[in-house]
């Protein structure tokens, strides 16, 4: 039975969805005060296991012991009350409610004990205290509406929320996937404090560096099976990758030997009141332009305006020297400017529709003639691209909502790659993607540049930016604050300085 020192202990957890086994006899144990990393490829079953612990899914078999007791939570409420909270991989804010209402949803302070009247002042006060404690006050105020927050702010709110339960175990399912360096540092600090308070943390991430920096032990899942548990000190990147993928994987970034050619895309004097100003940008063929900046710098906004999704106050776009008018994403597409958005739920996917339809919706011109869809062709193209992207699924007719987070991201990329881009805009393309798939995406990017495609990559992962880009453009507070080329780009410090420096202006 559960050892005394283990606060949370699972054994033999199995779970199937519609006949497909996604968890098969999984073991996991957590010691108070440790950071226990949980790793595995996309679709390995990490989130599913966590959702079973939280009482969101019911397990088919197996036991969960919490504080030595056999627990089988029927709903998240039970788990939260028992002392387990979770930061979910899929952010789910309630857009119309304020930060404080979101944080304390389900356990509002009452004006009078026993009566159901909410003390909003008290809610705000408590939220303010939390925000101050974690030095987030300049970012977020208790009264902000969730719908006005950007994705990083939302992620921080969810982190604060999970912590505010004062749970004994906190599950963090890819908490940094929507954060840039600056917030990540804040999260690390928070985790330190929690460790000191003997909280057990399950930390799911695809970022190797984080695991080695934070974790004490690491458990690995592969295809729903428990592979092993190691202390971080006794393991290495190679060993972990082998455990996850079952084979060796080349390390580092692929060599980009593409010729940088003439200017493909030129953005001139982009302005959108209150969001960004005087944006000038050039992308050459065969070039990868990295966009760095803190969250909220306005990188996504510029790109959204570029592809015609958002309105623009003023500015011009030139494609291979000719001015083009983009008023709607369709115009951008016709000029082969394609964007993969950062928030796949909000702008990327038709969650209730099939993988096939999601991939083909952006590529109707390729698979239809005279407005009629060629289903055989559609099927072939979709099968090919999903295979190429190594998407883990049962069939292309499955709804996207049944995919794991990382595999959903792959569907977004698939549809963009199919659209024959000349300029490809990738907004946080590797968010939530496992090492193997990341490598695949890097390879694809390189291959695309070799075909003369220009790529703009927005990323909050500094190593990735530095490793992949020919050139890094830094934005801060809606302005471009600098551009770093060649050798210079290798320095994180330079980038960070520009990203922060711009803000102080």
């Amino acid at each position, binding site marked *: 039975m559960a050892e005394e020192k283990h606060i949370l202990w699972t054994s033999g957890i199995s779970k199937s969805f519609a006949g497909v086994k996604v968890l098969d006899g999984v073991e996991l144990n957590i010691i108070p005060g440790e950071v226990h990393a949980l790793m595995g490829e996309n679709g390995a079953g990490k989130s599913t296991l966590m959702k079973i612990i*939280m009482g*969101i899914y019911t397990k088919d078999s197996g036991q969960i012991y919490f504080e030595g007791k056999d627990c089988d939570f029927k*709903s*998240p*409420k039970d788990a*939260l*009350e028992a002392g387990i909270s*979770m930061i*979910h991989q899929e952010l*789910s*804010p*309630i*857009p*119309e*409610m304020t930060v404080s*209402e979101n944080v304390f*949803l*389900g*356990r*509002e302070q*009452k004006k009078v004990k026993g009566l*159901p*009247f*909410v003390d909003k002042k008290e809610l705000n006060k408590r939220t303010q205290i939390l925000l101050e404690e974690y030095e987030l006050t300049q970012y977020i105020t208790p009264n902000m509406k969730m719908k006005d927050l950007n994705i990083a702010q939302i992620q921080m709110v969810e982190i604060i*929320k999970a912590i505010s339960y004062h749970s004994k175990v906190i599950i963090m399912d890819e908490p940094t996937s929507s954060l840039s360096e600056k917030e990540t540092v804040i999260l690390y600090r928070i985790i330190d404090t929690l460790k000191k308070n003997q909280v057990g943390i399950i930390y799911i991430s695809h970022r190797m560096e984080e695991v080695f920096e934070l974790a004490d032990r690491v458990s690995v899942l592969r295809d729903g099976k428990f592979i092993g548990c190691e202390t971080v000190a006794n393991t290495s990147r190679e060993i972990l990758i082998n455990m996850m993928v079952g084979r060796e994987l080349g390390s580092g970034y692929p060599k980009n030997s593409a010729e940088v050619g003439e200017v493909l895309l030129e953005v001139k004097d982009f302005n959108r009141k209150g969001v960004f100003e005087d944006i000038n940008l050039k992308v050459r063929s065969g070039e990868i332009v990295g966009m760095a900046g803190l969250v909220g710098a306005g990188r996504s906004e510029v790109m959204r305006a570029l592809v015609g999704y958002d*309105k623009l106050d003023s500015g011009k776009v030139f494609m291979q020297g000719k001015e083009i008018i983009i008023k709607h994403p369709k115009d951008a597409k016709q000029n082969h400017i394609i964007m993969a958005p950062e928030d796949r739920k909000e702008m990327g996917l038709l969650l209730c529709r099939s993988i096939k339809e999601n991939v083909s919706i952006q590529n109707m011109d390729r698979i239809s003639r005279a407005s009629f869809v060629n289903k055989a062709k559609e099927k072939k193209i979709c099968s090919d691209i999903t295979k190429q992207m190594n998407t883990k699924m049962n069939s292309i007719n499955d709804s996207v909502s049944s995919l794991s987070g990382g595999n959903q991201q792959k569907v977004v990329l698939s549809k963009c790659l199919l659209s024959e881009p000349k300029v490809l805009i990738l907004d946080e393309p590797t968010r939530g993607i496992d090492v193997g798939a990341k490598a695949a995406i890097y390879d694809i990017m390189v291959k695309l540049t070799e075909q003369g495609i220009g790529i703009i990559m927005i990323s909050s992962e500094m190593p990735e930016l530095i490793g992949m880009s020919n050139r890094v453009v830094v934005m801060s507070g809606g302005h471009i604050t600098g551009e770093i080329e060649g050798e210079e780009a290798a320095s994180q410090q330079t980038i960070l300085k520009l990203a922060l420096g711009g803000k102080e202006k």
Partner: protein
Amino acid sequence: MTQKKDIGKIVRDFGLAAVVLLIIIVMSFLSESFLTTNNITNILRQISINGVLAVGMTFVVLTGGIDLSVGSLVAVTSVICGSLLEGEMNTFLVCIIGVAAAMAFGLLNGYLVSYVGFQPFIATLATMTIGRGFAMVYADGKPYIIKDPSFIFIGQGKIAGIPTLVVILLVICMLGIIILNTTTFGRYIFAIGGNKNAARLSGVKTKKIEMLVYLLSGFCCGIVGLMLSARISSGQPTAGEGYELDAIAAVAIGGTSMNGGIGSLRGTILGFLILGLLSNSMNLMNIDSFYQNIVKGIIIILAVFLDMKTKGKQD
């Protein structure tokens, strides 16, 4: 701080309030009887029925649901009260039983939607049909005559010079605003409408809340059943036909999103005020009822449009 916020809200609601004001100003020039106490009392009395239904409907719509059964539930209460009053039962008891009957149907709605997982439209469509059938069978298609003076007081009496109907409307509106804006239940309603999954993950008993919301709408139907029966001194199986549309219209005009999560009772109140004023004004001006439909439709479009403009909603 709170003051500033309130002013903000008032400005946001300005669009509809402006429509209300506009109608009042225009009408006071067009008809001398418009701004008389008598007519104002009339308007208030006339909106009371739709008003109470619309308050209940607002709760339902805020969770992302819809309640088509309200008109039929009004009839259920109406015939039950009618028959019991004929049997000379104690008035108070009759009211309790009548409202309870509508609430039972409300519970069925809530159960089907939240626990069984029916789409609200289809669940309440079914209870709408069943409720109407029940009322018809119960009363054998014929109305009951209501003579009990203390019951009729609900529909035709006055409390401190204000018609009882209007007093009831005010009480229900106030209760509704308190529940929606100050209680945890109110928060949970917004949360469910905004993101049901997130609410559940935060430990909100979403099913229970959803169920309660339909129960609440049933309660409002029951109250309206009493109000209407007392007003027309009879228990009618055909009572309330088509009332669902008016109630939903008030909610929608008031700016509440049919997808849930966004909206306010303040908006709903302005919504049914506009509908009531419109109908009263057109009667006073003796507009042909065929043209009334056209005018009503156009004014609804204009009101909502103005509201959207002032809220800066559109892209």
